[in-house]
């Protein structure tokens, strides 16, 4: 119950303004070396899908997409260096890596045309970016091997594989993209897909893929957002993971932001937040309440919230 409360609160906060009006997201998507035509085509297509999604979502977003021959180490370095120069601390930085990776027991490398780039080199480049809130999504094979190098306070690291030894090609990227184009990933319906929601969606769909194909799962996605702990398969209050990811808006899919920025509606928004907190508290207390009492109180609160929202929408 405590876990649910923590994440509901965080998600609600995120919906109302975790990203300030002046903040801009920097999206960098890199499709690495495919090695064979099928993979090359698949990686490029996924990167291009993300490019479209990010560009459509926000006019102030900075979107960089590197595919095919463009996704060299030099080009990636240049792109990240440029963002390091331009971005402000209140901005958000999102790096998504699609392709193959390798891990030799010590060093993770993202396979790119020409020289590969190591997890450590990537970390150095990302560390230079002043954005205080960062998200790195490494969907490659062996990506679990990159977590140690990439993790940092204020940065969420998501990897498609639990360790560097899960070396088979992954399908996580496909479902990560699906998470961003499928409204069902927005489970709290706050019209924003958080990093945690996208992670949970992609992880679930990946597991379903292997289960339906009756194949032994060769990838187990993990997440780490404290900057100092072991990455986990499932976030919870107990393991302390997920708080930052729940509040990190990866993509807005509705008009929530407009209302948040309208001073005329501030009082109504305050009222709405108050009811939301009340609902969270009710849900937290559910186990200790009779079913009828819970239903009545929840029903009343939800109705009240709906009426406030109706006013806000006018």
């Amino acid at each position, binding site marked *: 119950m405590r876990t649910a409360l923590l994440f509901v609160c965080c998600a*609600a906060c995120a*919906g109302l303004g975790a990203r300030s009006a002046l903040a801009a997201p920097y999206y960098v998507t890199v499709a690495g070396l495919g090695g064979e035509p099928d993979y090359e085509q698949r990686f490029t297509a996924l990167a291009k899908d993300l490019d479209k999604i990010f560009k459509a979502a926000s006019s102030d977003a900075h979107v960089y997409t590197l595919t095919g021959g463009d996704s060299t180490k030099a080009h990636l370095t240049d792109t990240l260096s440029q963002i390091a120069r331009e971005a402000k601390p209140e901005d958000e930085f999102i790096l998504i890596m699609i392709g193959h990776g390798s891990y030799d027991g010590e060093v993770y490398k993202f396979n790119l045309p020409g020289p590969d780039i190591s997890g450590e080199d990537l970390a150095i480049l990302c560390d230079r970016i002043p954005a205080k809130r960062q998200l790195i999504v490494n969907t490659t094979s062996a990506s679990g091997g990159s977590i140690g190098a990439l993790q940092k306070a204020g940065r969420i690291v998501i990897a498609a594989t639990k360790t560097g030894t899960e070396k088979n090609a992954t399908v996580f990227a496909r479902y990560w993209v699906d998470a961003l184009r499928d*409204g*069902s*990933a*927005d*489970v*709290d*319906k*706050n019209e924003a897909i958080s990093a945690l929601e996208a992670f*949970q*969606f992609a992880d*679930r769909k990946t597991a379903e893929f292997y*289960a*339906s*194909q*009756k194949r032994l799962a060769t990838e187990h996605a993990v997440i780490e957002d404290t900057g100092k702990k072991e990455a986990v398969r499932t976030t919870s209050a107990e393991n302390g993971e997920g708080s930052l990811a729940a509040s990190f808006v990866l993509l807005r899919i509705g008009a929530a932001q407009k209302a948040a920025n309208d001073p005329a509606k501030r009082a109504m928004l305050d009222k709405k937040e108050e*009811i*939301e907190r009340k*609902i969270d508290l009710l*849900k937290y207390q559910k186990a200790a309440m009779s079913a009828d009492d819970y*239903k009545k109180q*929840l*029903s009343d609160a*939800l*109705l009240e*919230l*709906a*009426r406030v*929202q*109706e006013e806000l*929408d006018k």
Partner: protein
Amino acid sequence: MTSRGTRRLARIFFNAAVCVACLAGASFGWSATPDDCHALRKHGHRLEAEKCYESLTASRDPYLRAEGFWGTEQYQEANNQFRIAADESPKNAMIRVRWGRLMHERFNNTEADNLFNEALQRDPKNAQAYYGLALVSADGFDSKAIEYTSKAIELDAKLYEAHELMASLLLEDSDDAKAFAEADAALKISPEALDAMAIHAAIELLADRSPDAWLEKIRQINPTYGEGYALVADHLVLNRRYEDGLAYYRKAIEADPKLWSARAQLGINLMRIGQEDEPRKQLEMCYENGYRNEETVNSLRLLDSYKNFVTFKDGEIILKFNKKEADLLHPYFEEEMKRIIATYDKKYKMTLPAPVQVEVYPDHEDFAVRTMGMPGLGALGVTFGEVIAMDSPSGRPPGEFHWASTLWHEMSHVYILTATNFRVPRWFTEGLAVHEETEVSPEWGDRITPDVVAAIRDKKLLPVAELDRGFIRPEYPNQVIVSYYQAGRICDYIKERWGADKLLDMVHSYAAHKTTPDVIRADLGMAPEDFDKQFLDWLDKDVGKTVSNFDEWRTKLKDVAAQAKNKNYDVVLKEGEEARSLYPDYVYPANPYEFMAQADIAKGDKPAAVAILTAYEKIGGHNPPALKQLASLEEELGKPADAAATLERLNYVYPVDEELHRHLGDLWFAQNNFRGAIREYNAVIAMSPIDKASAQFNLARAYLAAGQKDKAEDHVLASLEAAPDFRPAQKLLLQLKDSNEGK
């Protein structure tokens, strides 16, 4: 090995003249031999036999020690002593034969097989080694069992055990007359051939005659010979007479409470008829007493896993699902079971005397445990009287099987086994069950596979009178599948030529215990040989073109696949059509229909893609991605009713698909089929979707549209509980409240 030891070993097998009366009560101060001990045991002198075996354990000869330890159930030590004996006498074949027999008795058929073959390397004319190989093969219903047994008899005509085994194998093949003769042959060699007597008893029982005379003969020789009853029970179970079989397993353990093999079979067969408590007790007793063969251990594991299952009872239907998918599957299975019972009650003109239990296993290995020790594939479902065990749709990759078709198939067995009181040959009940699959819908059931086409081409179909052999003891890898197909088509043929009532007449004839030749003569009015000929002529008219053009079709299909890869779409369409006309039933992976549909789509001809995918659907194709694509195209072309019907078909193939239910729910909702929409949206919720709020909201609006406001309110609250800010649900809640307040 010492020369004395070798002589003793020889005596075990060749000296039949043992004075049992003299041995009983002997103190074994003198040197006993293994066959002295075996003879005591065979005659039921247990204590004396045990002392006899104990005396062997003190021998200086490792081989004799091995026999002694084996006889006193110290199997590990017996194995060690056999190893020593074999090392000391590397050229001795008989030690390896006996060692192999120990391995066979202790559930290690791989090692047993190796040892019998090693024995044959040392002595190529060793009848006992061939007999050992036959025992191993017989365990797996391998057709080689008969070949090895014949060889053993050829090499040693006096080996009565081989004649006993041959009698049992022939009885498994339903060749009662030859089984009878072989049992007699064994008794002629040894008037104390107990298993031969048991085979005679089984023949009598299977023919609904009294087995008492034969059982009494067994008791006179050895009143504790439980193996005889167990052998009878094995044959009853093989003929699906589970209750009768259970009674004989009980007699077996009554005669010999330590006969763990029979006790394990009692437990396993009690499980098959749906019991849990007694099977656990019996199987645990076996396990605790060291009887830990694969069947026993796996059955106990399966019993443990039942805590993860949930049972639904509704009148005559008992459904058992794994908890993780119970909510999803229950409505579909229950609805289908009701439809099946209503159809079969009318068709077979009978009602079932007891509820039917259907167990649905998401883990194929659990299902496999339920079918262990049974002949044939047992691949998708199996019926044990009034209990059906089957794979869950989630137990196999999407599209690999049609669960509803399987359920109709198994339920046909339930009716036919009940109608005939289990007196029906395997070929007929399987054939009728296969026939029923396409009777429900011509789109259901399996189509003729390339293996079957090849079998017809190579003239491998069996005469109807011998068709059971194809199920019990296949002689080539796919003969079971070929036999299913043949049996099904025979029933199709009978219905087409004589009408459906003729099939029912045959059911009644089998119930009256007629043989297949008699049934063919009496009900169809012709000799079985004439029936075979006329059936093949009929079959040829249906599939003859496919059979005669099989090689050309293969070449063409290969080319279609290559052309599709190279995106030569016009060629794909032309050659795909040619391949399709040669073998229209080929709907399996890499079929022309899907290649052609992709070519049509690539060329932008969506109506043509719909046409070819519809043809695929109608002829029995049920690959989920292809059918989903068809539904999607039908929607695009403004045919939502067709799209919904296509997706509805997928529910019978692979309902473990959240997106399928959501989309079908939307389609039904848009077409005002609110009952359908409610069922589908409930299925979404049963799959614990990531997006709980939308799932609950969709269900709420479907309930509201269906006029069930209370349920609509419950589900809209559930939606908002998951996502309080979900605008559509908020609006629906306000709408509900306003309407309650009369606004």
